């Protein structure tokens, strides 16, 4: 594998998690750790040697221009590239200190939930069944638990009042933004330890967006969230750390406040001040 500049995760000075470049198994504060993570589509390198560490109960935002590899990075964490023809993943991923391999992929995906860039509800399933789908996959058959979960998670995503009278109608009868919120509800219904969100609010109105942001901030208490966003204000509002990707490389990974006010890299500064991108 081509060995480009290796950028270690430069976590904020005050927070003092220095990276030795090796995985420390006694580390209990880290939810996600990638070491030299690269992804190739056929012969084209899409992300190069990404080293990142996300702490538990933090929100990490990923920003960067279109096509820089944000989705590619996110999708490698729950091994979604297994399904992509021509995709190859290199490097190491640790989720809660566990080395991720193809062998435990089903368990991994139960722990690491994902909200996709494009809403993808199960079209022939009802709204209700969509939210309950994850529970069913976990072998749960308890109707009252389903009811409770559906109501709770649809309320979290601000969808309950809009759909409570038609829970049995098919999910594709919802608008695009409603579908996205349904997908968020479906993902959080199984209480994953880490939630990966790929531009979850790009199709949403301001009210729904702030509902989702609120949800993310509340969920931080129990979960770790990694969110891709094109909205820098949003990254500023909800995230603790922000990663800036450019052309498949991790340019900078710093505390959000620092990254937006006093970035280490000139490239970052140019991007966040809108000089390019």
């Amino acid at each position: 594998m081509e060995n480009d500049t290796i950028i270690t995760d430069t976590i904020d000075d005050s927070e003092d998690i220095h990276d030795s470049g090796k995985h420390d198994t006694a580390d209990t504060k880290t939810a996600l750790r990638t070491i030299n993570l690269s992804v190739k589509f056929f012969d084209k390198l899409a992300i190069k040697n990404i080293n990142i560490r996300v702490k538990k109960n933090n929100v990490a935002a990923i920003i960067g221009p279109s096509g820089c590899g944000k989705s590619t990075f996110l999708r490698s964490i729950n091994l979604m590239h297994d399904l992509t023809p021509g995709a190859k993943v290199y490097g190491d991923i640790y989720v809660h200190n566990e080395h991720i391999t193809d062998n435990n992929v089903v368990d991994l995906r139960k722990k690491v939930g994902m909200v996709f860039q494009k809403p993808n509800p199960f079209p022939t399933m009802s709204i209700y069944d969509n939210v309950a789908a994850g529970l069913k996959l976990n072998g749960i058959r308890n109707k009252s638990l389903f009811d409770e979960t559906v109501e709770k998670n649809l309320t979290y995503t601000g969808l309950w009042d809009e759909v409570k009278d038609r829970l049995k109608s098919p999910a594709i009868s919802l608008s695009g933004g409603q579908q996205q919120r349904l997908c968020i509800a479906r993902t959080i219904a199984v209480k994953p330890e880490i939630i990966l969100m790929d531009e979850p609010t790009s199709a949403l109105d301001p009210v729904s967006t702030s509902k989702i942001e609120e949800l993310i901030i509340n969920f931080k208490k129990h979960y770790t969230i990694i969110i891709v966003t094109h909205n820098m204000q949003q990254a500023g509002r909800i995230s603790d750390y922000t990663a800036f990707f450019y052309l498949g490389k991790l340019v900078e990974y710093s505390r959000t406040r620092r990254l937006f006010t006093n970035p280490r890299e000139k490239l970052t500064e140019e991007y966040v001040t809108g000089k390019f991108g």
Partner: protein
Amino acid sequence: MQESDIKISEEISTKEIRSKRKPGDIFFENLTLLFALLLIGLVLFIAIEIYGDSAESIEHFGFSFIFSSDWNPVTEKFGALAFIYGTIVSSILALLISLPVSIGVAVFLSEIVHKSVRTPVSFLVEILAAIPSIIYGFWGIYVLAPFMASTVQPALSSLFGFLPLFQGPIFGTGMLTASLILAIMITPIISSITRDVLKAIPVSQREAAYALGATRWEAIKMALLNARSGILGGAVLGLGRAIGETMAVTMVIGNKAQIKASLFEPAYSMASVIANEFAEASGSLHISSLIEIGLLLFGVTFIVNTFARILIYSVTRKT
């Protein structure tokens, strides 16, 4: 806000838009309309023609034609029930045998197998659909029927002999063998439609299932559930083919106008009796009766298809 507060403006007139269309659009619209009407007209024409030609038999026997299973050209007693029974039972049985196999083949081809194997196997499956039915008939008589008589039927009767379905003398030919031949003939149709339907499911749907921690089988199950209306549509097409199939069935069904509980017994189908007797029919009542069976075959196809559509509709809607 109250309902009455909302004023809905007048519907935008489509007529106005229509009148401004280009002549080419109008030409093609009418051309397609003409083709559609031609098809409907053809069906109506055939139906009326068949109805007219079977008038003598309809007049002579009335409704008893449908409810009697007597068929005797010598005494000129004609009743179609045994043929209707033979056609419906053999087709539905064929569908019941073929559907799980077809789904299995489709899942294998679209989800499991590697690309390099998929293309040749898909090709083979499609070739099966192109084999003339007379060839299936020969194969049925010379290979399948002896095998049924020597192996399958004795096994069934020793395992499930307590059921009336699997009792009685073993000939090799008969209802079960005919159903099996039909099942083989419709499997390529149903499986290739099912495969296409499965392949049309967007990747994002699969990803949704996998991202929730579905295993491969769970994801395939969800895909099948997703695709169920398309799969059932394929099944209806296969059923239609089975109902109308003539040659292969004629060669293995035994050609005996009777209604028996046992699937080992010979039977007869509507298409088969027409094919067997039409050329040699002498009396005009005999001919007219055969044509009335054709008319009924029309009706059975129509009813079965309607019923299947209703079934699909109710299954699809029940989300």
